[in-house]
């Protein structure tokens, strides 16, 4: 891991307090490699290493008995700061019903997250309604209905193929049935699919959601920033949910998306079961990325 690799770099130091430019270069190369191996975006890594270097040539490392450990401490601090504070609450405007809309690339975990969120909100005393706006994927609506049925949470499915019409009817249904939060599941889409991105933007404009959340797969590599940037520009989301964190992907994509879009990570999906949704822990994520 990075700790061991930095120790090896600094092991060759013969006298304490005399770190050369070359020593710092070697240490920064190790930090860079570790972050790239963890799937942090290559641009984010450049900026991050530049910041760490600034601190690495400062007193705290130069005067340290264990410069390698000091650099690891700095990296962890900077990563945690970059991950942001944990704000795993969903802020609603007060208008009823509140609306949460989920977006993201194909297969990221949106439909599962929709059900998990409904489950969580119900535990918090809300009465959610799930709305099925994926009219493309075979049996997508059946999937959401099956999950809703497992939880005993109602699912609205429309007749139309126009997702705006379905969503608006879903909100009316929530009002009629006195449900106080609507969770809208949408189809997976590519950020380069102009028609589908226009659909997402139109759906958001019609619904004026309290929260638009982008679901991102923890194993996503460099492409996470391409997708997140495009979704931020075209649809604009309020927060991120990172899914499949129960695996062993390091999850650097989460850091990059946060760094590049500034949007907070709200929750972590940690399994296929419908209670497998946790608040996001920035320091835990930072440690995981460091390996």
């Amino acid at each position, binding site marked *: 891991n990075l700790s061991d690799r930095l120790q090896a770099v600094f092991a060759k130091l013969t006298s304490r307090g005399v770190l050369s430019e070359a020593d710092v270069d070697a240490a920064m190369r190790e930090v860079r490699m570790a972050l*790239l191996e963890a799937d942090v975006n290559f641009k984010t890594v450049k900026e991050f290493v530049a910041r760490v270097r600034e601190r690495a040539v400062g007193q705290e490392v130069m005067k340290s008995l264990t410069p390698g450990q000091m650099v690891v401490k700095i990296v962890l601090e900077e990563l945690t700061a970059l991950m942001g504070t944990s704000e795993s609450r969903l802020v609603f405007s007060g208008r009823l019903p509140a609306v949460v809309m989920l977006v993201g690339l194909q*297969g990221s975990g949106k439909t599962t997250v929709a059900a998990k969120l409904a489950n969580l909100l119900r535990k918090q005393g809300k009465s959610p309604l799930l709305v099925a706006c994926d009219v*493309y994927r075979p*049996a997508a609506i059946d999937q959401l209905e099956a999950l809703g049925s497992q939880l005993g949470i109602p699912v609205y499915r429309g007749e139309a193929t126009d997702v705006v019409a379905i969503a608006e009817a879903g909100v009316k249904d929530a009002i009629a049935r006195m449900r106080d939060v609507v969770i809208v599941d949408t189809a997976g889409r590519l950020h380069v699919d102009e028609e589908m991105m226009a659909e997402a933007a139109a759906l958001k404009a019609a619904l004026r959601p309290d929260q638009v959340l982008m679901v991102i*797969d923890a194993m996503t*590599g460099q492409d996470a920033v*391409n997708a997140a940037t495009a979704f931020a520009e075209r649809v604009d989301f309020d927060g991120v949910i990172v899914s*499949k964190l129960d695996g062993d992907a390091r999850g650097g994509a989460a850091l990059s998306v946060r760094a590049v879009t500034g949007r907070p990570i709200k929750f972590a999906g940690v399994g296929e079961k419908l209670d497998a949704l946790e608040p996001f822990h920035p320091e835990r994520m930072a440690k995981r990325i460091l390996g």
Partner: protein
Amino acid sequence: LLRKGPDLDQAFWEDLEDALLQADMGALATSEMVDRLRDLAAREALPDAEAVIDRIQSEIAAEVASDRPDPFGAPPVTVLVVGVNGTGKTTSVGKLAKSLSEAGNRVVIGSGDTFRAAAIEQLRVWAERADVPVVERPHGSDPAAVVFDTLEAAKQRGADTVLIDTAGRLHTSADLMLELAKVKRIAERESPFPVRVVLVMDATTGQNGLVQAREFDRALGLDGIVLTKLDGTARGGIVVAVARELGVPIVRIGVGEGADDLEPFDPGAFAQAIVG
């Protein structure tokens, strides 16, 4: 890269490195490749940027090319389609069923994901699109039992291509990997012809893709990879490391959500998309 000018200046090498990293080639593989090319250029074995790019393209293409057989290429065969959650297995089974059936194979599908909500319903739609029979058991059944029934049906129908969809699972789940190994054993016991295993990988996957391939290969033995979602901006560069370490051939690519969006794998095109 070439548009920035013909010279091999620092900016060129940095841009080249960025292109390889962006494609998910990985930090170590990227620096090895770039260092080696810089050395060749310095010794004047490579005159300009165009020469460097051509060289990298042919190296990448050579790494991912394979002369191992296409598991779908020589029926009769039973293929287990496996992989982590959400990569495109069910969709790829549907696409494969259609193209193989159109090519004259007698295809039967086994609905082996008895776990996830509406997985059976999803595959049923694909089987209809491909106009291929699908064998099912109720949700919650033992997937090995579905494999058994599917192979019985295949024998009765004189099928020569059996495609088994399986539930997505993380390689970190020991129980689920054991379940899959059992499914393969049942397939080998009941299949009148060879059983192959194909891993479906998502092109957006980063370095974890190598771990996935390693673990699925260790548990089951892999005969091929289908790389999906190449119609996005991800390049799937992690398969270079997979090819290098495990030698598993990439046998198809997924380029969309439609029934015909499956193509043969072209190493040259793959390399060109990374450093074009």
